[in-house]
């Protein structure tokens, strides 16, 4: 073996070793700063972790684009939805007077809010885009209460790291990290384009999360649980999305 190729071998070996050590350190740091997504396992885990970690770092305080009134889509799309269950139909028949949003988990004051109570909180209006993972999109004016306000009312405990939220449709539940939960553009919408939120668009209550794709903006929200770990929910992958083969983090 000539000197030249031996040097190359040593250099390559050192570079590889540095790479492995670097990866190990990066993993430790990522773990400590909550940059590892719950669906990090499996053959797509590497890409998913890189996506979540990089976007989490980039978007801590970024704002989704807000549009002007003239850019609101007419009419807004209410995409197909499964037939709503008896529980929903019963509440609908009562004009949603008995609709409740239960908030529990790692909170000081678990509570159950009626729509009236949510509407009594300072309301928030935004004109943002809803992007579906299928590729289509529309812009609407949403009206509701910031999630941070509701979380403040129940008093989230300092060790809380995620908010899990459930639709009245038992197959649809999602979760977000606290950075997204407390983000000023994350809110519980009860109004759309100047009216009550239509049933087709998630009425009477849906989450709006404009910095992620539409499937995270769950419709017909009835229950939220604040937690420090997603392992105890469903299959522990973070939400119904990975269980159906989709990414938990939907920033892309």
């Amino acid at each position, binding site marked *: 073996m000539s000197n030249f190729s031996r040097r190359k071998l040593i250099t390559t070996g050192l570079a590889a070793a540095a790479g492995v050590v670097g990866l190990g350190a990066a993993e430790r740091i990522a773990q400590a700063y909550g940059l590892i997504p719950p669906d990090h396992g499996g053959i797509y885990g590497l*890409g998913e972790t890189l996506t979540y970690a990089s976007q989490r770092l980039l*978007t801590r305080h970024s704002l989704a684009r807000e549009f002007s009134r003239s850019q609101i889509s007419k009419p807004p799309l209410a995409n*197909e939805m499964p037939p709503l269950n008896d529980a929903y139909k019963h509440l609908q028949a009562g004009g949603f007077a008995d609709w409740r949003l239960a908030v529990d988990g790692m909170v000081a004051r678990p509570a159950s809010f009626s729509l009236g109570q949510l509407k009594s909180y300072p309301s928030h209006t935004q004109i943002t885009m809803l*992007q*579906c*993972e*299928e*590729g289509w999109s*529309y812009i609407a004016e949403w009206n509701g209460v910031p999630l941070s306000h509701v979380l403040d009312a129940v008093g989230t405990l300092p060790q809380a790291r995620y908010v899990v939220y459930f639709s009245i449709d038992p197959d649809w539940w999602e979760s977000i990290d606290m950075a997204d939960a407390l983000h000023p553009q994350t809110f519980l919408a009860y109004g759309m384009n100047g009216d009550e939120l239509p049933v087709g668009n998630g009425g009477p209550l849906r989450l709006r999360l404009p910095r992620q794709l539409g499937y995270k903006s769950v419709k017909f929200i009835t229950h939220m649980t604040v937690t420090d770990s997603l392992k105890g929910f469903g299959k522990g992958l973070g939400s119904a999305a990975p269980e159906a083969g989709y990414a938990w983090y939907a920033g*892309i």
Partner: protein
Amino acid sequence: MPASTVAARHSGLVRVTHWVTALCFFALLVTGFEIVISHPRFYWGETGNVLTHPWFQLPIPASRSLVQTGYGYVMPDQNGWSRYLHFQAAWVLVLTGLLYAIYGLLTGHFRKSLLPAAADWSRKALSTAIVSHLRFTRPSEAEARSYNLLQRLAYLFVIFILFPLVIWTGLAMSPGFVSAFPASVNLLGGQQSARTLHFFVTLALVLFLLVHVGMVCFAGFRSRMRAMITGRVR
């Protein structure tokens, strides 16, 4: 082995990044097609959906029933793993591309191998090269050791224009990325414009792929493949 019979052609890094990129591009293409068929309609501007007028619709069946395609059935929906693999392959492609770009700039590989020679910076040189290609003139022995003018221009265009564009238009569809860099989508004319442009840049890359493979076969599949695998021209 005497130096005159073994010529170094492609360095190890060029070869590895070439094949990794080829594999990633294949994965991105297949998964990209799978993603597109969930909504095979293209728009321009910010928004677009089944209630708005599309710029065009692909005459293929869709994998979701939301889009009226005229076919009486819906394709199997593979969007879940397709998206996971699409973004994972995108990461590998981008990181590999960065490595290749840094290498290319620092070692002078771009300057020596991809930048047209001084003598070729003329209209005559370009027209001569185009004519000889259109006549399907067999490449000379020297062309096995160095890229010709059209190759250089094509590779530069793909590396520095098409790939950056396909990455940019892809990122411009990410609500997360766009919230951090809204100019990325505003400069393209909106979210649906980004999506449509992403589709057209992909078509351009596929066209390049077809011509590239065709030219490799025409120039001598075995000799070119040997050079891009072993790094040597015999």
